[in-house]
């Protein structure tokens, strides 16, 4: 059996209520309560009058963040997006600048948080906004 790589996607953003449970799930996966280790961000659309959305890595096939990483901490991931080797990261934030949609986040310790498409947050998205989908590698 061939395992297809998977990627985190949004199914229907109109149903996003801005609860941020995905954000908290992401840090919790690493044993933390809070948002510091989260590679996903829940935002309102210029105020909650217009609803809410989530910002996370959209799994570029040719990621600019990898191109500007001087240490190889960010590497291309099979199926799109990146893998993050934290111990190699020197906290230069080049990647933060390079990402057009602002999906790489600065942690308090100077390193970064980025979605690696593990799908842990999907289990805690109460309104079915997020899903993990198979993609062609």
């Amino acid at each position, binding site marked *: 059996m061939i395992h297809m790589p998977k990627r985190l996607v949004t199914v229907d953003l109109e149903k996003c209520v801005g*609860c941020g449970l995905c954000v908290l799930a992401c840090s*919790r996966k690493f044993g933390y*309560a*809070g*948002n510091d280790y989260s590679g996903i961000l829940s935002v309102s659309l*210029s105020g909650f*009058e217009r609803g809410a959305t989530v910002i996370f890595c959209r799994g570029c096939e040719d990621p600019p963040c990898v191109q500007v990483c001087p240490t190889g901490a960010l590497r291309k991931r099979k199926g799109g997006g990146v893998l993050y080797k934290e111990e190699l990261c020197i906290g230069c934030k080049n990647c933060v600048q390079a990402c057009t949609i602002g999906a790489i986040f600065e942690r308090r310790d100077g390193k970064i948080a980025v979605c690696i498409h593990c799908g842990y947050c999907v289990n805690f998205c109460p*309104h079915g906004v997020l899903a993990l989908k198979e993609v062609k590698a």
Partner: protein
Amino acid sequence: MRILKINLSEYSYEIEERDDIEEWIGGAALAVKLMREEIKPNVDPLSEENVVVFAVGPFTPAYPLASKTVAMFKSPLTGNLGESHAGGRTAMAIANAGYRAIVIKGKSHKPVYVVVENDRVYFRDARVIWGIADSLVVARIIAEKEKGRGIRTIMRIGGAGVKLVRYACVTTETYRHFGRLGLGAVFGSKNLRALVVIGRGAFKVKDVKAYKEVYREIYDLALKSDAMKKYHLIGTPVNVKPLNTIKALPTRNLTSTTFEKADEISGEAFAEYNLGRRIACAHCPIACIHVATLRIPYENEPYFYRTIMVSYDYEPIYSLGSMLGVGSREGVLRLIHKVETLGLDAMSTGVCLAWATEAFKRGLIGENETIVKLEFGNVENYLQAMEYLYQQPNDFYRVLAQGVERASEVYGGREFALAFGGNEMPGYHAGYATHIGYLIGLRHSHLDNAGYALDQKIKDYPPPEELVDQLVKEECWRQVLSSLVVCFFARGVYKPEIVSKAFKPLGYELSEEELIRYGEETYREKLRLKVDMGFKKPRIPDRIFETECTHGKLEREYVERALDYWWSKYVR
């Protein structure tokens, strides 16, 4: 735990590490403690000496549904202890910024807004925006100027706070409010237009595996059990119809408890015709915030429309709907939008205008005072009157901006001035427990002890003493919830056993008995602070004995006996 103290008089701040306070203390319990340390009980609420505490809890942001923030201050409306809770993103931002509480002291010489960004505090000039009445506009300006999108809260006042209306609120994330008891006026008196908190942070839990298990259990309980079902779908306005049916819906200044237009302004009707979207407070899967879309045409300009998004809940539908005899959804939404933009508390505003309408009808006041003709159901004139509450063009509106207790002292009509402990009445007239609950509740809120819910269960009333003990017991448990800053709507999820269980992975052992003691102690301390601030036995408005409720007409003697018993057993 870390406490941030901001001094507006000196434009300074300090971060205190408080090793002397147990790590599991938060919310209401912590706020009472900090108030005790920081405030002289006899200060003028609108003076530089008043203090504001914002406190979050030990479960923020570890568990869902624990995202309320408790604000404590001296209330300019009652002259006594003020406590107000709000959802939104405030608690999450404060906790992620690294604080269990933020204390605000002093008074700025000139208008400012304050930005807290984790360990730093910035004082920003607010002179340019001070005169903007619309709270939504102020929020948008600050949102565009400051960073922290997605990880911040913007707590701000509208024009009512600037003009020191004693029941002005502080609004957060557009649709959630520190509504009651006038925190907005306290902000205004301190020349503080807004408090922005930007928080990025996290803490490592003690037992990761157990933490994830308990988290999952709470999450499933919230979503899959019936514990919160009623908030999922129609939201709090689901109450309109049943309350009307059981004769508990205060209507036209409580001259009636059934409203002939109740179906028109019911939660079901709003959901069917107006609901535009639902949103959630941070870390809440329920999303009970219901936002209506209202399209208002311009009368003389075809093809021009104003489209506004208005958050509606049961309480504003009661206070600006049935209480004012307004039976159209459009009318209710426009009135809610007006209090939202000005930053007025919806309940107090509605009750004040309902009293004024009756006083007008009886000739106690006339158009000299009210400028516009006040009549039940007249939306346009109520909109204008709200504008006057903000502008305060004459003595009458200056007095009405101080609340219904004060207004009825000056103009009469005390018997139908519906305030309890100085706080305008919430939306229930269900029986003895409702009103005794308002009178003895430490915030004079229906949520203190949920007497209104008890009335809906009771068939035969016990002696008043027993009822009081029951209400106090409920209020003590709710001190635990509001110290954990758990949303009261999630009280069915956070039973003592779950609370105790949730503490363990965070590293704290608290038995159910200890939790209950914690609640009782918080209740006692809060009451003691109220007494030191000059708490007097509250007045009982005559009107509640004149209008039929679920249990028929209420007898004064029962309520007086209850109040006397509470006063002698708990207060003295």
